[in-house]
């Protein structure tokens, strides 16, 4: 019976009931929904498939396999934690859109055909938008619009690709696609936009920092990981993904190092982590795909934890600018401690979740002789120690005191962060919990002497390097600034070009009007002057024009007939 409900629908439908509930009941229902969904997920039999006819095409909105399941588990965990984190709000819109967003992302994981995928794909785009708009500032509104345009374009590309793919193969199934035709290339691009491929990543660093405190937590979990899932499903082993991922891991690290807004820093750090996963998909071996799934799982949790911590800081102090923060440890000790757990995880410290997932991808890359990529990823790991491991925690909680005194984060936020931190730690200590969920059998042991020793060295020496660099004055200092990225193209260059083109067009138009159209107009007026008593006809130009056009078309049809 419970299998009849498509996964994710519990969240979507349940969210729609939310506005009609009141008071405590509303909050209970809110927290209960992800739990219910999670329970349903554990009951789903693997291999289940539902299908129905949609004007002549068999669609398959539910298909359960291990790749979908591992992502679905972490999405439900993320949904639960995000909802707890957002429990202090009095904003039904954010709750509803957050749950619909999470539910549609989960639904997309189980879409067995491209049309169902497309539908969920677009719902995630629309629902997530309100996590940005709910901030209700002009900047958030504009960033949201840009976000919407890009997300919808991704959907349009997906649909166009689907249609072309269908025309080529007659199949709508969402399975391994490969870069074999124009259609699948468009689908690849659609996924690439949401996965924040280099040059397609502008929306992420643009929009996430503008989202609400709780919205950024929701956003960090679903959209990009859904794209990673889709890439893993459709394009595993596509070689071009390896350099793409390496570039993502590298360039985002540079940006993260110089970013002042800590939530934007986290957005870049997120892109960098996505780069690891994209490399994993590109490598395509069983271990690489396991690593991608595992890293996505771990990264949802620790990245969520870091966004939650920065959200709490934003909530209490009103800013996440590194240049304005410092010394918050005294005011927010719990947040500081939990944030450190997140930092340790992303730095891949042994006993924390990053350690057991990231190295799978690295090992797979090395085993498949992607030596350069391996080196780049390793350097990006060191970079992650710098920007997300040290800087986030240090600048906010331990650095020079800026005199900000505030309350500790609300209780529900601490609960959510505590839960996420616990999970990060649990996965680090007992990696088999995660490994059993992975799509392929795992024969990988993270806790070997050499691996632990290497990783500890990397981290310790990176920290030492940070100290040295600061002492030598070589470390990029935090200062109030905006760093240009690809979104400059459509935020600055494009409007400029449009204005320029508009001016030129207007000039051209007036030139044409004054010459060519004058002739036509006077011809029309001549006809009117004889056939239409002016004034009586009210809007004579359009009548005359219609008559003229009718005559022209008549001539055109006759010519076509004779030619």
């Amino acid at each position, binding site marked *: 019976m419970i299998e009849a409900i498509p996964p994710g629908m519990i969240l979507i439908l349940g969210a729609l009931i939310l506005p009609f509930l009141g008071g405590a009941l509303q909050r209970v229902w809110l927290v209960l929904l992800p739990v219910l969904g999670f329970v349903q997920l554990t009951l789903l039999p693997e291999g289940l498939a539902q299908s129905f006819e949609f004007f002549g095409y068999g669609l398959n909105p539910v298909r359960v396999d291990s790749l979908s399941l591992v992502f679905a588990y972490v999405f439900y965990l993320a949904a639960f934690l995000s909802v707890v984190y957002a429990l202090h709000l009095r904003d039904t819109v954010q709750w509803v859109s957050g749950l619909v967003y999470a539910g549609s992302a989960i639904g997309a994981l189980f879409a067995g055909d491209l049309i169902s995928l497309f539908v969920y794909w677009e719902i995630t785009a629309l629902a997530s938008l309100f996590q940005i708009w709910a901030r209700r500032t002009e900047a958030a509104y504009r960033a949201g619009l840009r976000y919407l345009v890009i997300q919808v374009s991704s959907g349009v590309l997906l649909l166009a690709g689907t249609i072309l793919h269908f025309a080529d193969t007659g199949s709508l199934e969402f399975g391994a696609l490969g870069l074999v035709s124009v259609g699948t290339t468009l689908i690849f691009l659609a996924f690439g936009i949401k996965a924040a491929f280099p040059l397609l990543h502008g929306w992420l660093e643009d929009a996430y920092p503008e989202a609400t405190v709780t919205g950024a937590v929701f956003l960090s979990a679903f959209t990009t990981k859904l794209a990673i899932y889709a890439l893993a499903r459709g394009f595993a082993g596509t070689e071009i993904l390896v350099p793409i991922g390496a570039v993502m891991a590298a360039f985002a*690290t*540079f*940006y993260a*190092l*110089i970013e*002042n807004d800590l939530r934007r820093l986290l957005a870049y750090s997120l892109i960098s982590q996505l780069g690891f996963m994209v490399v994993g998909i590109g490598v395509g071996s069983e271990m690489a795909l396991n690593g991608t799934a595992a890293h996505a799982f771990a990264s949802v949790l620790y990245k969520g934890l870091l966004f939650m911590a920065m959200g709490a800081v934003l909530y209490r102090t009103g800013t996440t600018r590194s240049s304005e923060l*410092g*010394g*918050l*440890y*005294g005011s*927010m*000790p719990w947040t*500081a401690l939990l944030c450190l757990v997140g930092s340790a995880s992303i730095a891949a410290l042994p006993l924390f979740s990053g350690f057991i997932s990231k190295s799978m991808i690295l*090992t797979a890359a*090395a*085993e498949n002789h992607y*030596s350069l990529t*391996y080196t780049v990823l*390793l*350097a990006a790991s*060191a*970079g992650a*120690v*710098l920007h997300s491991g040290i800087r986030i925690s*240090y600048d906010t*909680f*331990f*650095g*020079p*005191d800026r*005199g900000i*005194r505030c309350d500790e984060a609300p209780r529900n936020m601490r609960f959510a962060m505590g839960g996420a931190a616990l999970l990060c730690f649990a996965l680090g200590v007992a990696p088999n919990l995660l490994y059993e969920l992975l799509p392929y059998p795992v024969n990988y042991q993270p806790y070997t*002497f*050499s691996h632990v*020793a*290497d*990783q*500890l*060295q*990397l981290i*310790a*020496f*990176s*920290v*030492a*390097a*940070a*100290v*040295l*660099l600061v002492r030598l004055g*070589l*470390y*990029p200092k935090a200062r109030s*600034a*905006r*760093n*240009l*990225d690809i979104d400059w193209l459509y935020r*600055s260059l494009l409007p400029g070009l449009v204005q320029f083109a508009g001016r030129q067009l207007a000039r051209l138009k007036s030139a044409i009007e004054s010459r060519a159209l004058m002739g036509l107009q006077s011809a029309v007026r001549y006809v009117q002057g004889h056939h239409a008593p002016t004034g009586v006809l009210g809007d004579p130009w359009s009548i005359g024009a219609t008559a003229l056009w009718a005559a022209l078309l008549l001539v055109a049809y006759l010519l076509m007939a004779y030619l």
Partner: protein
Amino acid sequence: MSQEKPSVSGGQADGAAMRRGLRLLGLICAVLFVADFFVEKHGHHAWENLPGAYGFFGLLACGVLALVASLLRKFVERDEDYYD
């Protein structure tokens, strides 16, 4: 890491704690480096099997990253309200 005065009620680590922490860090680095001579390695690349390879890689990578990032900053940095 910082030259500023410690504050009483803030959460900033004070100078003494900071010095202790740095000393600890140095010690950890040294221990790890020494210990690395006694760990059996089976890296995929030859350089990984050198003792202390990851430590040096970390140092080097962080240095290069910081330098390139500073360079990048020269090109992309604008006023905070650039888009407004």
